[in-house]
């Protein structure tokens, strides 16, 4: 039996991991909650009262702004891939490493084999149309051995292709297809890159920010019915 990421083993406190509750958990029936944020402890003080919410008020304490991350993991990756590792940050206690899109496959392989990130939890993209390289492709990795998460991110321009990681994690197959389907990002070396959620004959990629169903509709009406759409 493989025993992985069990909460019983104290995970190491490297940055880039989820918050671990304090040691008192499960010790007694008294409910003590970890209080990582001030907000919550204040809420506890106002225990008896119903929540009082001021309209428009911002949270008392904003989460820390993304800070630079520089730990052993990033160091090792930098040593090995040099410039391909661009910028490592930590946002809301989660490690994000920005990498060079062209070398993602090798980096992924290293993450899987040497850094023990066995599982590709998720693969997705974000569209920033105003940016020069408009897409963020995001690989969410998880290490069962270390109970740790890592997010790889690469900037990709429209029309640029990204190496597929299906040879590293077979599970990347469908997410990459979905990414291709909804963003139009081409993954080089994918065994079967087709649309997955939308029909084959669909036009456009809906999750792009400039995708406009209304505009498409108007165009379709003009083309096929020969009239101006009333919408």
């Amino acid at each position, binding site marked *: 039996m493989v025993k992985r990421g069990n909460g019983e083993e104290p995970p190491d406190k490297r940055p880039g991991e989820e918050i671990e509750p304090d040691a008192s958990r499960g010790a007694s029936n008294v409910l003590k909650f970890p209080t990582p944020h001030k907000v919550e402890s204040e809420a506890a003080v106002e225990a008896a009262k119903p929540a009082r*919410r001021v309209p428009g008020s911002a*949270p008392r304490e904003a989460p820390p702004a993304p800070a630079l991350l520089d730990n052993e993991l990033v160091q090792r990756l930098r040593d090995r891939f040099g410039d391909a590792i661009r910028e490592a940050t930590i946002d809301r206690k989660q490690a994000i490493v920005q990498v060079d899109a062209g070398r993602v496959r090798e980096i992924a392989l290293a993450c899987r084999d040497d850094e023990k990130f066995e*599982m590709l939890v998720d693969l997705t993209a974000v569209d920033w149309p105003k940016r020069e390289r408009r897409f963020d492709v995001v690989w969410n990795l998880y290490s069962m051995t270390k109970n740790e998460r890592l997010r790889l991110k690469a900037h990709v321009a429209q029309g640029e292709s990204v190496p597929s990681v299906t040879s590293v994690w077979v599970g990347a197959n469908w*997410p990459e297809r979905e990414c291709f389907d909804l963003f139009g990002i081409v993954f080089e070396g994918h065994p079967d890159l087709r649309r997955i959620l*939308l029909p084959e004959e669909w036009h456009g990629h*809906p999750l792009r920010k400039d995708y406009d169903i209304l505009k498409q509709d108007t165009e379709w009406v003009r083309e096929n019915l020969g009239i101006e759409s009333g919408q």
Partner: protein
Amino acid sequence: MNAGHGAAGFGTAHGIDTTVLGENEIILNMGPQHPSTHGVLRVKLRLDGERVVDSECIIGYLHRGVEKIAEHRSYPQFAPYVDRMDYVAAVSNGLGYCEAVEKLLGAEAPPRARVVRTILAELQRIASHLLWLGTHALDIGALTPIFYAMREREEILKIFEKYCGARLTTHAFRIGGLQYETYDTFERDVKRFCEDFAQKIDQYETLLTENRIWIGRTKGVGVLSADDAIALGVTGPVLRASGVEWDLRKAQPYAAYDRYQFEVPVRENGDTYDRYLVRIAEMRQSRLICLQAVEDIPEGAIMARIGKVLKPPPGEVYHSIEGPKGELGYYIVSDGTIQPYRVRVRPPSFFNLQAFHRMARGAMVADVVAIIGSIDIVLGEVDR
């Protein structure tokens, strides 16, 4: 459109070659309207007699563009939409989303809210597993368990209804805590349900666990090894049945799970029978969690002070919970406005379904439905 056809055959689902058929081979389209593809899954099977030579899952028939909708709603407005993804486990979906946004805001729900959330989420896990049990048994030809399972699920839905007025798409939680206080007899209802439920699980097990036909139909069927499961991103009971002891409730506790004693059921063979046993054992554990939690719900506020208009500072967050079907993750990117810039849902069924191709290799048509049932997919979540 069809750019990037590389070398074929990385082991996961790729399109079936329908042009070259061997002797006695036929192509069978199961679904999207088929009694046991659980909604609108379409499975294309290449059969040699009754044996599966190749398979391909074709999904997307229930695609509603939930992720796109999110970009046009404010954070609280989007919350009801997540209920419609895994519609048999709406509470879990809501829990994941609310916690993800809370993390993005840097807020946290008060203790009372977290305990109530835990109770409801565990009840939802039981309800989801019950629905799975019933339909899975029905697929294998056992007509009776589904009605027993529905009977107990009804009790859970009644508790939901009493709590928030809805049974299926509950929208039970709000970002920052809870909208509603628990109703007067909430503790009693939950407790009574949990106390009766132990014996009810025994009933299901009497019908199935040691039944020769059931064992014959499920043992050694749809085997998924631990390494394959991890490589495919499979999570939840399917992963645990393959011998990987990994549960987000233990590994990275959220809500109030770190307060309660429970075990993570694990089996080693990774076949359909083990997935069945794992889920049955999980129902028992969920029941124990509910019993512990309902004994001692802390007093206090149910809502954190987060303000009415939610404007998370720019940045991004990934938060995941152990849904009934596996790791249910939300990756939310904020640009500092009231609307999320991007919401990505990591649906467990989507990744688990990917493993179908591997499990179905060499199976028979009858095994195909057993395997689909044992993965426990909800197409609303796969297609979003």
